[in-house]
């Protein structure tokens, strides 16, 4: 066992040691019950320090972003009904539990799944998606704004540079003839680059691939447009700040 770290435990507990020093204490604690016991006593005070912080309400969408990001870790369902049932008219908060279940299938192209039908192929595709997402990838949730409240989408930026980013939308509203949803990436200078155009396919969950890598942009947004080309002109449907997957 290394030398006791008694003199440094207070600094360690409040995070005031430099990284190398903290690593040395961590290594010692792993094999020293006496120092661990002493640290636990100090921790009773340090754990109370957050209680004196001014309470602050996090954005409402943060919880859904966390749950969506966590859902990609769940194992693929072994058996699933081939026919989806969804009751329109329910609000997004009211179907939170259902949404969590739906997110089990994040990033899987549902139309393709229907065509494939075979469970082993479905699992293989799901596993491939998980692999794509989990290797250093990041996710950001966009909540629908104003009249689109209740809809939303999760942007997936895979960690591998040769992988395509995509957005999994839920509860999108159907569009009038001629209109399209446009997915935009916005850089730090405020330049909007169109990453995809799409129309709703009538399913509760819809996956849309982007034609532009996301790693140089700082925001992702969806607007309602009357043209598949040109600058952004329509109203904002949803938006989220994003950061490069490597950060």
């Amino acid at each position, binding site marked *: 066992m290394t030398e006791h770290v008694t003199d440094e435990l207070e600094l360690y*507990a409040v995070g005031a040691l430099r990284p190398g020093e903290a690593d040395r204490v961590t290594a010692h604690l792993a094999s020293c019950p006496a120092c661990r016991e002493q640290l636990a006593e100090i*921790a009773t005070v*340090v754990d109370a320090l957050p209680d*004196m912080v*001014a309470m602050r309400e996090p954005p409402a969408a*943060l919880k859904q*972003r966390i749950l969506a990001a966590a859902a990609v870790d769940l194992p693929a369902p072994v058996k699933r009904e081939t026919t989806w049932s969804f009751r329109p008219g329910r609000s997004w908060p009211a179907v*939170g539990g259902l949404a969590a279940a739906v997110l089990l299938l994040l990033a899987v192209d549902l139309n393709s799944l229907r065509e494939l039908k075979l469970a082993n192929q479905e699992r293989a595709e799901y596993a491939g998606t998980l692999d794509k997402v989990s290797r250093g990838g990041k996710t950001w949730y966009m909540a629908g704004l104003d009249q689109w409240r209740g809809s939303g989408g999760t942007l997936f930026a895979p960690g591998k540079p040769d992988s395509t980013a995509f957005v999994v939308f839920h509860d999108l509203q159907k569009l009038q003839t001629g209109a399209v949803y446009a997915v935009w990436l916005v850089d730090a200078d405020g330049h909007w680059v169109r990453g995809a155009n799409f129309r709703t396919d009538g399913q509760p969950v819809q996956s849309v691939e982007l034609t532009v890598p996301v790693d140089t942009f700082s925001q992702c947004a969806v607007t309602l447009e009357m043209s598949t080309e040109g600058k952004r002109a329509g109203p904002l449907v949803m938006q989220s700040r994003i950061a490069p997957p490597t950060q």
Partner: protein
Amino acid sequence: MTPEMLPADDALMVALAAKDLTALATLYDRYGRLAYALAYRILGESEGAEDVVQDAFISAWRGAAGYRRERGNPRGWLLSIVHHRSVDVLRRKTAFRPAPLEVAEQRASDEDTAASAERNVEQQTVRLALQALPEAQRRTIELAYFGGYTHVELAELMGVPLGTVKGRMRIGLQKMRRALEGTRA
């Protein structure tokens, strides 16, 4: 947190380790606000605080199987993740330099005033215990925990030897511990 909540928190950790999304949602409902407040207090801006809280909860989700009760309660474990990540982000900022003491003090004072209406008994207890410390000990604890300063930076900032920083931290935390134990007894 009351002692009565501990079994519920422990049960949450078991469910979290079993990859129960409902448990993660409950954990967020219980501590998300405090986690965000802590991250915001350290980083001083909302976007960074959001990222830290998301990373911390996902880290807890993925690391729940390795959680050991003897190393701290679930609340302390989760908030320590938030704290460490917040301080990491703060230190990685390229423009980060130790702020003048008076700036850090002012920021703490502003936030504490804004929070006064919501402070519960536990918050009051901790705050009183900290306020009862000599100023040098209180500053050392606050600047280290909320300001992300290392002991080397603190020694330079406060113009005292490293041993003095260490001593102030130790004595200050010991006094706070006695004060909190006296209140809770």
